[in-house]
């Protein structure tokens, strides 16, 4: 089994053809980036608003909790049946997964800023816009990146399933391997997906550490700050 896996990874066509590993990897990253980006365009402004005004908090909690039970495969398949095959339904379905952690991270970050700092900012005459962008946003960054991390992992995992609805990406190897009863191909794809997820997780952890100022890092100990509003790394295991 392991020797056939090594042969599968070692085949030259695997690294140069149009269905080779680099192409599949880029497709996978592309779907992920697109969905997270679209999700962020929606979730970050809403999270900033809810965090700043504290209006609509129930929306954050409800969304973050409600998503967990929703089977990703069902959502993906439903969108494809409603909108037809292609990138749009897959991006929309993946975006739906990215929104709750991004929203919760942004909200928790903004609302968790020390009220004394916000009052002081108002006291020195900052406008609400300045308070939000110059005081609250920089302080919220660690939790926002934590939300980004959860969202990215969720999406990169579920992008694997996109192959089931005829898209590319690394899931292609698993779905095609299943159809052709080629277990080597399935296992190879699975290993690649797992590696990609772990590499992204480590990279985003690094980013999170980079945006966390020293004082906070010391206070929170070895633990990375995580949004408390029912998100965290806990949201859902990978799709």
């Amino acid at each position: 089994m392991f020797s056939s896996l090594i042969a599968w990874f070692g085949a030259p066509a695997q690294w140069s053809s149009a269905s080779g590993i680099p192409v599949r990897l880029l497709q996978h990253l592309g779907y992920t980036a697109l969905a997270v980006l679209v999700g962020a365009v929606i979730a970050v402004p809403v999270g900033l608003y809810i965090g700043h005004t504290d209006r609509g908090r129930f929306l954050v909690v409800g969304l973050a909790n409600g998503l967990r039970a929703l089977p990703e495969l069902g959502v993906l398949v439903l969108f494809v049946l409603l909108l037809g095959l292609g990138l749009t339904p897959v991006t929309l379905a993946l975006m739906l997964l990215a929104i709750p952690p991004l929203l919760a991270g942004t909200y928790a970050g903004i609302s968790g800023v020390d009220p004394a700092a916000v009052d002081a900012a108002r006291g020195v005459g900052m406008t609400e816009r300045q308070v939000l962008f110059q005081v609250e946003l920089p302080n919220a960054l660690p939790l926002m990146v934590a939300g980004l991390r959860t969202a990215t992992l969720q999406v990169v995992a579920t992008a694997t399933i996109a192959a089931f609805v005829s898209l590319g990406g690394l899931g292609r190897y698993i779905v095609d391997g299943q159809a052709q009863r080629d277990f080597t191909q399935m296992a190879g794809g699975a290993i690649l997906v797992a590696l990609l997820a772990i590499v992204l997780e480590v990279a985003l952890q690094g980013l999170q550490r980079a945006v966390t100022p020293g004082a906070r890092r010391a206070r929170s100990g070895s633990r990375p700050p995580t949004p408390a509003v029912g998100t965290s790394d806990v949201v859902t295991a990978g799709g």
Partner: protein
Amino acid sequence: MRLFGADILPLAAEHIVLALVPVLLGLVVSLPLGWWAWRSRGARRVLLPLTGVLYTIPSLALFVVMPLILGTRILDPVNVVVALTVYAVALLVRSVVDGLDEVPSEVMTAGVAMGYRPLGLLFGVQLPLAVPVLVAGVRVAAVSSFSLVAVGAIIGQGALGTLFTQGFERFYTAQIVFGLVSILVLALLIDALLMMLGRLLAPWAAARAPQKAGDAAQRSSTREQGEAAQRSSTRESAV
């Protein structure tokens, strides 16, 4: 009961078993591991990041790799059960550590003064007091387990998830919607049952929870509990 050409009740029963057995197994494995990580700084330093990495691996990949590790056949339900157990352990070790961390040291000292031995203290004092945090973790694990089982349908082991794969092949939207709703309802029912079980086991927690919700956002160390508190305070039974 036959719907969409499939026997629904056996599928639902299979879904419940495939989703809940891993959570039970995961809890059994996590209690000693979590206790160990709570006691020993070294164990904590190794176990918590390790569970983080395991949690990062996408479910479809884990399902596919299982036969390689376990020597099982590809279509063996054991693959899904073991893979989901891995996720449950990844979630619950953290919950056990957090739960034990929550027990005030005065209470432990009082227990020791009353003559409790370490094991008696664990089962008689620490674990009962950790119940609210544990139940919150188990609820998260159980609910995400329900949606993850469905992913198994791609490799022919999905219980109610087969409604998605079949519905997609036949372009049958109603079947997919039915699958989504039934999995959601099952997950919500189990979540509600677990919540009630938690209330029975730790009646004091529900009374204390609402006050805790406010500062939960800043406290990453008690995030599961904060999450539970927010849920109970908003009566958000929706997972």
